[in-house]
Each structure stands twice: as structure tokens, then as C-alpha cells.
């Protein structure tokens, strides 16, 4: 009930500002990246997660449309649980959300449309998604997804060499992290009395893509 009220209020308030059709903007962006049927690339994954020490690792990413994304690595890598094509998956399910145009913002020097997506059903894990799409090139430049199970996932997309395929050269991901606790029963270093340092609650993962092979 509460959710319906919010939706109504938002829709009524913004109806005056609805200069753009949000679905059209989303479709334009989707069209651009949907041209990629498959790709492979090398990816360097650098993670900065509270209570975790991990060096940058090399991996190989391969994608086959529509949803088959695989990351393989000899090293241990840390990725967000939702993966990093979550927003594209949400966008593709057009009948499952309501898109609301929120205006324009400058993101990384690009004039971008901000579109908020709200799920139509409570059964969805995601509660809200915000997408910033480059107004000129219809590229997703930033996304923020809030889920019930995993908190908020924020992704910044930087494009260069594969802009024509809507494939980023870099992705900067921020993900909510729980406060670290030692699981009971695991033999750890019982003799240490180190003070636990103040831990943040946001983990950062930077993906750098190279050697794209598209289609």
C-alpha cells in the first residue's frame, strides 16, 4: 500500500516534468548493446573490500547473448553477487517495471538522462534501479540497483575503445559489505589480540577490460 502511494505521488509530481519518454531512452540504450551477440575480453579485477586483502587478478570474461556471462580465472577473484549485467537484465524485462524519467544530470562530464525503475511486483529481489544514460550516445554511464538480499550495487561505466558496441573499458563497482565476523568453529589465529580496525561497509571493485573480441 505504502509502495503504491509513493508511486502515485512520484508519478503525479513528475508528470509535469516528463519531457522525455523514459522507455524510449531505455530502448535506445538497449538497442546499442544488444548488437553484441557475443564477446570475450581480458579483465583486470582490482578489489578493495573491507576486511579482505586481495591483489589485482587477471580473468577472462566471455559473454553469449542473451544472458550467458562467464568469468574464468586462475586466480581468486571477487565479484558482486548480482554480477555486472544486472541492470541490462532488468531493462530487458520491460513488462516487469515502471520507468520514470527523473531529469538530466552530468555524469563524468556527460549529459545523462536519469531514469528510475520500480518493479511492478513485490516478488522481485530488486527494489529500485536508477540508470544514467548518456544523452548523446545512449550509453549507460552509471547504474544503481537496490536489492532486498544484497543491498545497493552502484556501477560507473567508462567507455573508450569499444564505445560503438556499448562495451565499457572500465567499470567501477561499489557494493554493500557486511561487517566481518569470524565464523564459529573455524580454527583461526586464536592467540592474537589485535584490535579490529574500523571497517567500512562499502566494497569497491574496479574492472579494466582489454583485448575485446566482439561477435
Amino acid at each position, binding site marked *: 500500500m505504502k509502495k503504491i502511494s509513493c508511486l502515485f505521488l512520484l508519478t503525479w509530481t513528475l508528470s509535469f516534468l516528463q519531457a522525455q519518454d523514459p522507455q524510449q531512452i531505455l530502448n535506445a540504450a538497449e538497442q546499442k548493446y544488444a548488437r553484441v551477440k557475443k564477446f570475450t575480453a581480458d579483465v583486470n579485477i582490482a578489489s578493495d*573490500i*573491507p*576486511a*579482505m*586483502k*586481495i*591483489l589485482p*587478478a587477471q*580473468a577472462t570474461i566471455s559473454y553469449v547473448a542473451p544472458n550467458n556471462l562467464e*568469468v*574464468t*580465472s*586462475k*586466480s*581468486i*577473484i*571477487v*565479484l*558482486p*553477487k548480482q554480477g555486472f549485467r544486472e541492470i541490462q537484465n532488468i531493462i530487458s524485462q520491460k513488462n516487469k517495471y515502471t520507468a520514470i524519467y527523473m531529469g538530466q544530470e552530468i555524469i563524468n562530464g556527460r549529459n545523462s538522462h536519469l531514469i528510475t525503475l520500480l518493479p511492478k511486483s513485490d516478488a522481485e529481489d530488486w527494489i529500485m534501479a536508477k540508470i544514467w544514460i548518456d544523452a548523446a550516445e545512449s550509453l549507460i554511464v552509471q547504474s544503481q540497483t537496490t536489492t532486498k*538480499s*544484497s*543491498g545497493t*550495487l552502484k556501477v560507473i561505466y567508462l567507455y573508450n575503445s569499444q564505445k560503438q558496441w556499448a562495451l565499457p573499458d572500465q567499470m567501477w563497482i561499489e*557494493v*554493500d*559489505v*557486511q*561487517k*566481518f*565476523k*569470524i*565464523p564459529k*568453529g*573455524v*580454527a*583461526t*589465529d*586464536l*592467540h*592474537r589480540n*589485535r584490535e*579490529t*580496525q574500523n571497517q567500512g561497509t562499502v*566494497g569497491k571493485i574496479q574492472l579494466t577490460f582489454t583485448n575485446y573480441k566482439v561477435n
Partner: protein
Amino acid sequence: MNPFKNVYNEWVKIAAKPRSYLGVGAITVLVAVIVFALKADGLSFISFVTASFEQTLTFGGNVLNGNLVAFIVLQMLVIHVPLLVALITGDLISGESAMGTLRLLLTHPISRHQVLASKYMAGAMYTAFIVVWLGILAIGLGRGLFGTGDLMVLNSDGLVIIPESDITWRYVGAFAVAFLALNTVATLSIALSCFSDNSVGPIVATMSIIILFTIIGTLDVSIFDSIRPFLFTTHMASWRSFFEDPFPMDEISNSVWVLMIHHVIFWAISFFYFHRKDITT
């Protein structure tokens, strides 16, 4: 008198005892059981370890690899292997006393100090053999069945993921320190063996001391804070420090010093007492 011949004699005696192979066999079985369990359901174990992170993150790559398996196996060092070492070294003097061979040994042209020194050397050799065997099994079997990869270690302040290329020297160092810790147990048991005329007493006494000191070390009571850093059991797990980042050189050096000092203390007690002991058995 060639001291190496004395050590060789002691090694012949250790190798001839069926009990000596109990430790080797137990380690082999233990490692096999752990490796089998991890092969069957290792991913659940990893989930258990990474539980704090798995709500929002996922781990990729070869997480359950031979290096991690070896690390899990080595965790046994803290609890089980000291007993297997004490089983042999605690018997080196008292066993001969019980058997009656001690009087025969000490009426040969060899000083008591030489006898004791050769037994310490043989005990150290056995301990080293146990550690090396554990290492061969853990790393060899682990890497053979699970492949290699980065090592994920859970410490009290979080997860450390060590690149594969950075692991070998850490294992070498860890085994060296583990040997030092276990040899402290061996030295203690040999010292206790000097005071006894039966086989079982020194072994039980050694394990009792380890258990007592471990409890003191883990009880979060301020009255024990001052003695905790000086207990050898506090430093028996210092081999794990090799898998921390940044590498805690000071902590490891401190542990090595404490363990070495315990060696010297136990040696001194045993040499002093054994030299004066009346052999009545």
C-alpha cells in the same frame, strides 16, 4: 666416540619401534580423510568460511585448490601432531628405563650428556620427518587432487588472498616454524622423560601441559595477560603468521625467540637432572 654413531643408534631404535609408525600412519589417515571430505564437499566448507562476504559478493577462480587444502590440513598441527611427536620422544629415556636398557647404555663408554644429546638429535629428526611427511601429503596430495591456485586464508581480522606465486616461500617458512614449535614439544617430553621410569607418564604429562597452557592462553582473563606471551603454546600457531599480509616479521621473530628459549630451558633442566640421576632400574 663418534657422536653421529650415537645419533644413528638412536635413530635405529626409533625406526625399529612399531609405535614410531603409528604417528606416520595416523597423519596419513588424517590427511586422507580431510582431503576426501574436502573433495566431497569442500565448497560448503568454503562458503562457511566466506559467510561474512557471501551476501553481496561471490568468489570466482579455483578457490578450493591444493594450497588451501594443504593449509586446512596444516591446521591439524595445533592439536594432533604434538601428541604424535610426544608419543615417541616422551619414551626416549623413560622407555629405556622401563625396558632396563638404560643401565646397559650408561655403562658403555659414553657420557650421559652424549646420550641425552643424541636422543635430542634423534627426537628432532623424527619431528622433522613428521613435519616433512605432513607437508608432502598435504601439499602433494592437495595439489595433485585439487590443482594449484591462490590461497584464501581466514584470519581474525579478515580474509587474505595470497597469489599463487607468493605461496611457496611462505609454506617453507611456515613448516620451518612449525618444526620449531613441534620440536619444543619434543624437547619438553624428553625432559619429562628423564624424570620417569615408565613410558606413559612423560607422554601424558606433556599433553597435559600443552592442554593446560592452551587453556590459559585462550581464556580471556586479565590475570593471565602477563604470562600468556611467554607460554610456548601461545606461539605454536605462529606458523600461520606466514600467511598474513602485511608479513608480520616482528611477531614471527618474537615467536622464534620464545620457542628457542624454551628449548634451552628444557635442555638445561634435562641435562642437569639426567647427569645426577641414580639409575636404579
